[in-house]
């Protein structure tokens, strides 16, 4: 039956992805190997240099393979073709955030150093958006490839990893349901800002930053309102319970 076969294929695809879920992160045992092997790494890093000119295409991959000293045909080493190139961009940009963490937070002139967690999240998200600077004019093509059904799970996975990385580097320590709402909210904000950026012609992407800050402020006021209502409800409930107890009701 066709639908069930499609479903099996999808499950297989999902299983084939390494590092599929967020897992225990060890500090004193070495990290497991990255998702690209040496051959892929060589071809992709060489091909990545051709992206601004040729886009996230098979052509860029062939040029990269030639630069890396492989035959043109060896782009077959790279399983998903152009999508692997996009994924390489996503992974390298995400991993580039951690080493620059201190630099990012110290601010431009120490006047606007990011001290609170929301401010750090804003800085890191902005820094990650700036990582798209060189490929921004090609990013709409990339988004189209990422939206193809077979690539959607991996793309969403990368988005989730990025958002988790931003929260971790910003020092967010939530361990309750807000862990999920914060990450979900930032995923939406990041994806829409990225889309906004592809049409942004303002100098140094100033409009995108304003857009990002507006969305984050909206998210902040929404979560503030929800938090306020929850706090009021729980206070009222426990106060009511205590009044009943003081009246001698055995509860």
């Amino acid at each position, binding site marked *: 039956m066709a639908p069930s076969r499609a479903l099996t294929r999808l499950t297989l695809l999902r299983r084939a992805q390494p590092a599929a879920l*967020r*897992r*225990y992160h060890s*500090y004193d*045992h*070495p990290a*497991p190997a990255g998702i690209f092997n040496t051959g892929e790494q060589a071809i992709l890093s060489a091909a990545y240099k051709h992206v601004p000119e040729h886009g996230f295409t098979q052509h860029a991959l062939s040029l990269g393979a030639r630069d890396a000293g492989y035959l043109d045909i060896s782009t077959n080493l790279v399983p998903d073709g152009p999508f692997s190139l996009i994924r390489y961009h996503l992974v390298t940009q995400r991993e580039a955030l951690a080493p620059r963490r201190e630099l990012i937070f110290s601010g431009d002139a120490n006047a606007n150093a990011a001290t609170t967690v929301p401010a750090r999240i804003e800085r890191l998200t902005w820094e990650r958006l700036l990582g798209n600077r060189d490929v921004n004019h090609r990013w709409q093509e990339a988004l189209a490839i990422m939206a193809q059904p077979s690539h959607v799970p991996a793309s969403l996975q990368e988005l989730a990893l990025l958002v988790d990385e931003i929260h*971790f580097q910003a*020092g967010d320590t939530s361990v309750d349901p807000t862990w999920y709402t914060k990450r979900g909210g930032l995923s939406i904000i990041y994806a829409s800002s990225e889309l906004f950026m592809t049409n942004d012609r303002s100098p140094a992407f100033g409009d995108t930053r304003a857009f990002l800050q507006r969305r984050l402020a909206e998210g902040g006021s929404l979560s503030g309102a929800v938090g306020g209502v929850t706090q009021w409800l729980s206070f009222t409930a426990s106060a009511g319970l205590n009044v009943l107890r003081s009246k001698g009701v055995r*509860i």
Partner: protein
Amino acid sequence: MPPSCEKSLMRIMPPMPPLRSHTRLPLYHDFLLTAVVASSRRCISTGARQSDAPTETYEATRLKSLNPRPRKPLTKEQRDFLSSALRVNQTGELAATLIYTAQTPPLVNAHPHLRPLMAHMYDQEAGHLKTFNSLITKHRVRPTALYPLWSLMATGLGWSTAIMGREAAMACTEAVETEIGEHYNNQIRSLLEMFEQWEAEGYEVGTEFRDLISTLRRIRDEELEHLDHAIEHDAKEARPYWLLTSLIRAGCRGAIWTSERV
């Protein structure tokens, strides 16, 4: 020696030479090592948030230079096991604090002499929750998605057993702590198997894991102490004892099974 003197002494004197040997240390050595490493790390800390990563500390580099054996990267299964273990422990301690929070007012109202015991058990559980909260943030483990459900169920369980009386409340504690003690023992056993395998292959076990296992042992012992308190306070007198405890134990097992997964 008062603790403040001890701390300032620690700052002046170089840390003790490492106690580590390749064979597995007896329990109290593990504790000692943890205490030494933990407290002196606090003194050296430079204030940067990530500097508490053991690889960057003075002891760790010293240990490494004395102990050149490599450390093995964690496999996918091991990382899965560790994340689900930390997640389920955090969930369990959350539930435990909520059970005691809900039990305390009706129970203490009826039996004022239980106040110190309940406060003591609650304080220990709150400490455990804090430990696991910081561990899951540090190791980037996802907290359980069913947080609201567990909160509701734990509060309901605590409150209803407390309404049923002192014996029922104690039987609840007994049932929960029996399951939890067994659960921690299983985790410790799996960790020890992991260590043995590493040692057999000639790899070193990181400080992080020695700390983790001594934390688990300490917490397990405290949970079993609660079990003893419950039995001392007539948990076995609850009617119907068998029904109450087997229901609660089955519930605990179900909750553990679920929160290992979601």
